[in-house]
């Protein structure tokens, strides 16, 4: 009897999550009202706007993920192995970023790095010159910078968790045998961190592919990604079938990545007594 208690919540989620996603796929097969003779799929997939957005979404996601991995590794190593007063406070701050809305970062960047922003004004007052020195905000580079800021904490959380199970004695032994700090990092710390980097990296890749707020708040025509394209097609121009095609492509892309993430994560957690993806999300607390 107790075995079937899980069915009611499962049915609710099937109705309110799985069914709408299936409806998106079905909607994409409907013909477009404006052009009833051609299929919506070939119409959208052949359009330059879609191809540009697809390429840009992937490029931004991959670059941001690499940036997060590099920055996150540096910060996590310092937090874990170079104790200093206030380390806990910094850890809290980085945790907090996880629960904040992502568009906050773009908003802050417009005041900091916008063409009339604080940094440009500071540079102008020191060096003179009229043209703003920093002008990357409305380019893919601006989105990448914002995404690195917002998603690096996910990598840090993963790495800190893996460093926590690394026995301190291993580091001390390696160091006492004459290994330089860099050598200790390379041959003792990093092999342990590698699976966590893989898991953190694929999670961040998934989240950056799906990121919406940061790109929407940038508001630039030049950085249209797939999620923003779904929004403009569906809501601004009210072309639901067209939006559904893009959404279907994005859902397939994200699900493929999610499945591979779970496979990687299951491998990372093997032998640690945890067999589930839950721990990642749990860390977000």
């Amino acid at each position: 009897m107790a075995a079937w208690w899980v069915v009611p919540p499962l049915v609710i989620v099937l109705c309110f999550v799985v069914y709408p996603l299936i409806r998106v796929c079905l909607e994409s097969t409907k013909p477009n009202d404006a052009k009833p003779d051609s299929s919506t799929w070939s119409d959208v997939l052949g359009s330059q706007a879609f191809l540009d957005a697809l390429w840009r979404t992937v490029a931004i996601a991959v670059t941001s993920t690499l940036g997060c991995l590099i920055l996150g590794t540096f910060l996590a190593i310092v937090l874990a192995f170079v104790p200093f007063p206030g380390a806990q406070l910094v850890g809290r701050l980085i945790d907090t970023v996880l629960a904040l809305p992502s568009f906050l970062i773009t908003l802050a960047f417009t005041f900091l790095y916008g063409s009339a922003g604080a940094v440009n004004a500071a540079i102008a007052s020191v060096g003179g010159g009229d043209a703003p020195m920093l002008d990357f905000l409305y380019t893919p580079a601006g989105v990448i910078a914002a995404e690195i800021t917002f998603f690096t904490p996910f990598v840090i959380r993963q790495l800190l968790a893996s460093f926590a199970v690394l026995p301190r004695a291993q580091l001390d032994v390696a160091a006492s045998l004459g290994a330089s700090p860099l050598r200790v990092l390379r041959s003792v710390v990093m092999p342990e961190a590698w699976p966590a980097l893989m898991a953190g990296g694929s999670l961040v890749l998934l989240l950056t592919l799906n990121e919406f707020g940061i790109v929407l708040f940038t508001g630039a025509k030049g950085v249209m990604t797939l999620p923003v394209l779904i929004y403009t097609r569906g809501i601004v121009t009210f072309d639901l079938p067209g939006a559904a095609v893009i959404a279907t492509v994005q859902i397939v892309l994200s699900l493929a990545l999610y499945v591979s993430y779970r496979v990687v994560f299951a491998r990372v957690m093997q032998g640690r007594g945890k067999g589930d993806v839950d721990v990642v999300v749990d860390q977000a607390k």
Partner: protein
Amino acid sequence: MLLWTKRSRAALLVAFTIVVVVVFVAPLATVVLAGLAGSWTGALPSNLGFAHFGDALSGENLASLSVSLQTAFVSGGIALVLGTWAALAARSAPAWLSRVTDAVFHLPIAVPSVAIGLGLLIAFNERPLLLGGTRWIVILAHAVLVLAFAFSAVSAALDRLDPAYRQAAESLGASPLQVLTRITLPLLLPALGAAAGLAVALSMGELGATVMVYPATWKTLPVTIFALTDRGQAFQAAACTTILLVVTLLALVLLGRIRGRAALR
């Protein structure tokens, strides 16, 4: 412990501080400062004052804050009940069913929130369940998105729970209902509090699914903030974002403090 010389250690900490300040502190501080600023044309903001915060807490912006709070608490509550139920029940379900539950409940994290919003818009804009154009479609979207996090948090907490308490109660003759209400749920209370805080925080900042489904009568604070930046009222947007930030942090801290007697072991 890595053996650093004093100098290299100091250099490393300086680099670390610069990175943390530039990457994490500066954006948060900037939004708060911009909310206070009357104008910001130089390196530092000028005409500091609380005028924008006054506006952020009156009229349409206050209405949005209230909409966001109602949405967050209602959808967070639904998600927490459903997520806890599913996480508890999945334990005693057959292995295959438990795996299916896990996969399905994590689905909203994996797909973009805009796609979830589009799906709800298409699926519930018709009878028998006509939700489009009402506040309920926004609440439903938030509940769906937050559900995955609630389920995850409770599942992870259940993994850490010592089964000895439950087994002891069962061996003393407690019924399954008694075990649930007297043992499992009290032990889970801190995790439930933290999950509720996270749920409210995530719902307060949700934008992707909301912009797809919201009716004009139920505008959440992030939607209003987006409209403000779109109209060029960046300072007002910053003030509203600061309010959003404060409320989110309060929810995280207050709900995270729920401990109950069980945690005092």
